[in-house]
């Protein structure tokens, strides 16, 4: 993890634009990032769910892997992650995790094959550690190119397809978790149909010096408004998506985190990634705890760290909790003992010492609207 207190805050290529737009800038993972714009988080959240929002996620780490002669990049990366990377066709994208020897999650990431390369997008707070990890383990097989100065824009919401296809018509045909190279405003960009909101939408990797012009161009469309990290968090929580360092960390395995779906069948059987023995045993026998959705009955918000109890006995802890603007009520997710984790289980969330009744529910809280063609 980057120590946020080390050195001055870094800026993304959109720093000047954020200031112009009146953003409230806060330190986040070593960067000065917009948490919200003047309209506020609730308006930004609804804007994204109902129309289209533009997010600056340039703080995230982009890394390109290219095979050295006689080596296979996908096979090499599979020694660090449990996802099926060798099976990625050009243009396909997967979600996976870097695991440690105990099966814990060092970071979660997106991997896209462009045919010639693998492109990784990792969390901002982990990117230096991830890069060191990759360099230590994969330098023999791959050229490793950190692209930390590139821009990354997320265009999310039901109108994202309408807007982006005006600038790059080919993106309309992309399916969820696929990507392609396009030219936007004269700059060569890589676009994937993906995101962190549960909405349809895109992530656009841009050359650093073209990022500001492309962002301004996207914002000139009437459907698009700028969205900060505040709404990014409330959107991902509604979508039931994990936030690294909160819902998942080095002490959480992909099985405990409910991410087994992201581990390919062959890889479950064959292993060959850090912590495989632990993860395979959990797949066979069950993990000690499980990540679940929590729906409080009342209006009190149980936030990260709140204890989850049944009849006064603590069975887990809230890992993310907040107000769900789409639902107009509080929601949360947390880790609970597996024996108490079935949907419909009644629990109490301890909010400022007071028990707030809640129920374990399936996630997502708001239906995903991905475009699967």
């Amino acid at each position, binding site marked *: 993890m980057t120590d946020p207190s080390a050195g001055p805050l870094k800026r993304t290529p959109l720093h000047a634009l954020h200031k112009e737009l009146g953003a409230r800038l806060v330190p986040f993972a070593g960067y000065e990032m917009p948490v919200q714009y003047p309209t506020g*988080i*609730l308006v930004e959240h609804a804007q994204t769910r109902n129309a289209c929002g533009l997010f600056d996620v340039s703080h995230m780490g982009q890394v390109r892997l290219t095979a050295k002669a006689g080596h296979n990049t996908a096979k090499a990366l599979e020694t660090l992650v449990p996802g099926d990377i060798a099976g990625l066709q050009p243009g396909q994208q997967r979600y996976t995790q870097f695991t440690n020897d105990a099966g814990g999650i060092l970071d979660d990431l997106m991997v896209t094959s462009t045919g010639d390369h693998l492109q990784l997008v990792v969390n901002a707070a982990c990117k230096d550690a991830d890069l060191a990890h990759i360099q230590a383990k994969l330098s023999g097989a791959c050229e490793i190119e950190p692209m930390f100065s590139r821009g990354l824009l997320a265009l999310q919401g039901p109108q994202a397809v309408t807007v982006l296809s005006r600038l790059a018509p080919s993106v309309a045909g992309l399916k969820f978790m696929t990507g392609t190279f396009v030219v936007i405003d004269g700059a060569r960009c890589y676009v994937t149909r993906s995101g962190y909101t549960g909405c349809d939408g895109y992530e656009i990797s841009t050359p650093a010096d073209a990022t500001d012009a492309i962002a301004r161009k996207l914002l000139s469309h009437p459907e698009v408004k700028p969205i900060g990290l505040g*709404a990014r968090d409330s959107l991902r929580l509604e979508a039931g998506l994990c936030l690294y360092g909160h819902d998942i960390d080095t002490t959480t395995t992909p099985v405990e985190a409910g991410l087994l779906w992201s581990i390919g069948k062959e890889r479950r059987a064959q292993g060959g990634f850090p912590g495989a023995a632990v993860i395979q045993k959990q797949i066979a026998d069950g993990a000690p705890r499980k990540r679940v959705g929590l729906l409080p009955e009342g*209006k009190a918000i149980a936030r990260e760290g709140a204890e989850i109890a049944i009849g006064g006995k603590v069975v887990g802890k809230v890992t993310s909790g*907040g107000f769900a603007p789409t639902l107009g009520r509080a929601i949360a997710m947390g880790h609970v003992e597996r024996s108490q984790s079935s949907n419909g289980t009644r629990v109490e969330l301890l909010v*400022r010492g007071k028990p707030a009744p809640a129920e374990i529910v399936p996630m997502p809280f708001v239906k995903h609207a991905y475009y699967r063609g």
Partner: protein
Amino acid sequence: MADVRYSEEHEWIRVEGDTGTIGITQYAQEQLGDVVFVEVPQAGRKVAKGEAVAVVESVKAASDIYAPVSGEVIESNAALADAPGDVNAEPMGRGWFFKMKLADKGELAGLMDEAAYAAFVKGLG
């Protein structure tokens, strides 16, 4: 004439006779952002100056509201349960939190008047 005083924790108290109405300031609501939940104290609760008596939650975080002076809570703004956004829209009007009977009006002297509070906020940058 009602007299409005301010605390360094960005609460205001409007005093009429020996009763005070308490809420949070315009500056506080701007800093919090969209308010989505407010927990107000029950009538009859005796509170000491500086005690955490209410909670205001924005999308991002929960914040305590402190009693700017000592006394007894006599009424809470029940309407905030269904309309927490009133705190953003009218922090010194419909967005009030609770009313209290003051124990010692002398404590008001330790709070800021409007000009002093404006200067205090300005100093926060």
